[in-house]
């Protein structure tokens, strides 16, 4: 477990190894657009390098997809690692928008307004 975090992974096997076999955490994974950020809490010295690397990339708000791209790890792996970190209180999420509200009129109006102001 001393592989450099910058190494791009193309192996189909490694993700399974990193996540300790938890390819499926059994709960609905964070969606790709969920926003995450490192908590103020200092990480314990025993933290695995994979988890630590995520924290260094999350000094501000980023989506799960961006964390995945910056790390060069598939989202399926990053979702699991982030779930660990959230469980330990080391990563906080912006409260996700409940599914029912995603197609909510207020939300869509905001998106429309934001796009129109780009013209």
């Amino acid at each position: 477990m001393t592989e450099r975090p910058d190494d791009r992974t193309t192996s189909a096997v490694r993700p399974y190894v990193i996540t300790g076999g938890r390819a499926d955490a059994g709960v609905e994974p964070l969606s790709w657009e969920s926003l995450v950020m490192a908590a103020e809490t200092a990480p314990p010295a025993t933290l695995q390098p994979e988890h630590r690397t995520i924290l260094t990339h999350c000094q501000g708000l980023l989506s799960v997809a961006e964390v995945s791209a910056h790390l060069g790890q598939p989202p399926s792996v990053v979702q699991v690692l982030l779930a660990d970190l959230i469980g330990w209180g080391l990563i906080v999420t912006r409260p996700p928008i409940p599914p029912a509200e995603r197609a909510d009129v207020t939300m869509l109006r905001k998106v429309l307004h934001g796009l129109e102001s780009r013209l």
Partner: protein
Amino acid sequence: MASKAASEASGALSSGKYVNSSVAGAAKIMVVGPLGVGKTTFIGTVSEIKPLSTEAVMTQAGASVDVTVDQAKATTTVALDFGRMTLDGELVLYLFGTPGQQRFLPAWRDLARGALGALALVDTRDLTASFDALGHLEDLGLPFAVAVNVFPGSPVHSDGELRAALDLLPETPLVSCDARDERPSVLALIALVRHLLLAAESS
């Protein structure tokens, strides 16, 4: 604008890597269509960050495949590129470019969860290449708009001909676009969101 490996972490720290802390939530729209239709170009045009790419690993349950396959694990990877637009400083909209071919359908399911809708890009030089993507959207029940990217040598079709050829519902927006240009690209997104809004208001 053919920058390839846009996914390196290095250098990203310097400017605009992070989403503004004023942002309270995120939404996503999928940009779908066959290879070469202009998905990456479109995303690059409207995105505030250089498009990033991430490799989705998917297990294969029997799709016919000619992409990278590890026979033993039966997994395939597909590169998905995406971009980001911060809207009015309070909301961030992610755009995910998703290849339309049948073999990529498994990668769509996780990604499409929670998407507002999709913009389907079409190249009229090969309309049949768009059928898979449109079919996936219908299967997933994801509302969409169609944007036609005009290429040199594109045949000229009337809207009616295109709607018939693509089997579009009368209410599905159909716009023409140049993915290299910001204004028509933003207008295509606006056509989609207006359509989503109408549907949400009438339900």
